[in-house]
């Protein structure tokens, strides 16, 4: 599977009901995304709606916002003004945003491949997982971008360049649902490990709170992927940092 394949429906393979369901779900999300993507809930402009390397021209698949608090970190409701310490976290914030953009991009390409029939029959639970989790990563991206924006830093709209080639290469080898789940698990493991490693190093309370509120959700994504792949969902007693990545 590759990005340039995502919009091509193979003529030889009939659309299954499940692929139809996924496509319908994704199409429905476009409207939700459009409705939710331009406001942060406090009158401020949302930071990102189509990040992840895929532009609207490349794909009509959008992600739902997914954030219950209108783009705000529920654990940091007063963060209209950045703390001075946030300046020390901006490199990590930019990197985290790039990581989230990478995840959004990968899930978007996976959804497109599924819609195009390139993954075979897609179980409804997997389709729901992809759309839900893509929305979570979009919300996380938006939140990191919000931190960057209030700090006067440029927002991130493309995946981290150092990691993208690895994920792109992996995406090309994905030909079925288990393969897509393996790739997703890799992404979630990398993301959660990266946040885990970052939490003790971050300086600003708002960035610590944000990373701490994302890391467990990424691990929850991983748990369900383990389950779908036939593995025990909670394999480790303590979360690990071995797969953590850091800014280049």
């Amino acid at each position, binding site marked *: 599977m590759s990005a340039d394949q995502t919009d091509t429906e193979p003529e030889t393979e009939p659309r299954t009901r499940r692929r139809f369901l996924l496509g319908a779900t994704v199409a429905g999300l476009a409207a939700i995304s459009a409705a939710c993507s331009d406001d942060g809930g406090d009158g401020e402009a949302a930071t990102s709606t189509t990040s992840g390397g895929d532009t609207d021209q490349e794909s009509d698949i959008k992600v739902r916002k997914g*954030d219950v608090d209108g783009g705000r970190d529920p*654990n940091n409701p007063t963060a209209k003004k950045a*703390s001075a310490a946030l300046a020390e976290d901006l490199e990590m914030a930019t990197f985290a945003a790039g990581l989230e953009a990478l995840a959004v991009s990968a899930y978007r390409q996976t959804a497109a491949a599924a819609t195009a029939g390139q993954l075979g029959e897609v*179980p409804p639970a997997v389709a729901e997982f992809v759309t*839900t989790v893509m929305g979570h990563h979009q919300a996380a991206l938006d939140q990191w971008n919000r931190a960057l924006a209030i700090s006067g830093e440029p927002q991130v709209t493309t995946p981290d360049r150092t990691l993208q080639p690895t994920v792109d290469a992996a995406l090309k080898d994905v030909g079925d649902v288990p393969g897509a789940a393996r790739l997703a698990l890799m992404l979630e493991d990398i993301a*959660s490990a990266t946040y885990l490693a970052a939490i003790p190093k971050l300086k600003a309370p708002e960035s610590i709170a944000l990373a701490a509120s994302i*890391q467990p959700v990424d691990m*929850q994504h991983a748990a369900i992927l383990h389950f*779908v792949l036939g593995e025990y969902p909670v394999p480790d007693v*303590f979360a690990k940092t071995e797969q953590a990545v850091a800014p280049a």
Partner: protein
Amino acid sequence: MTIDERALRELIAESNDLHVDAQRDTAAALDRLADLRHDRRDNEVNVEEIAGFNAQRRTVLAGSGVGAIGWLTRGVFATGFTTALAALVAAPASADEALDIQILQTAGSLETLAVATYAAALELDFIKNGNEVIVTFAQTTMKQHADHLAAFNAQVRKLGGKAQTQPNAKYAKIVEAAKPTLKAPGDVVMLASALETVATQTYVKNASLLEDSPTKELMASVTGVEAQHLATLRAVGALLGAGRAELIAIPTMPADLPAAAGGAAFPKPFEGTEMASPPEEGAVK
């Protein structure tokens, strides 16, 4: 010399008022200085910044009795105000360490309760003779919570505190009240989900409150695992609710999983802190 008792009482009352006012104002000032001193270790001091983003921690310190009020009672009035201020800015962060100890002890209380609750669940006929994956999950999760407890207690000892061996009193009452109502696996899943939610959200909150870096690393490494317990319980609950208990299997049958199973395990993109236990809730007295 005669004593005007009425005048004396008024004088005492006035003195007490002054003392209370002084305590309140000084507590606030010392609290701010404690944070200022903490931040001064690495960074240039910005009073406005510190006053803003450390407000949460100050509130906790003051509320738990280990912050400024603790400093007041131990040192300020005994050694003189200026001496105490100077000492506060220069001294090790004893208040911070005390708060970290309380956080670890409260975490220990939640882990102790979790171990006891899963152990009790495994005694229920409909659990121990029921779905094998649920039994494995309860056994494994109980062991993981025991390991978390051991890790928290080892860390609290390193910080000079006492290990927590008692279950969280607040939630122990809730568990005890719930036990007679546990009639089916779904009931146990609901109860366990509540405990895992409290633990997860408490540890998320702690990430911003903890000062000691190794403690923060430990806490964060446990948070995600509790979150995975919660995700698994939510998924199991969704399958039980859908009448698809046969899908609670490893390996499961992904093609048969209802759509809800793909999203029910993580309802929000950010883990909340609404149910977080305050640091002092499970502190060793």
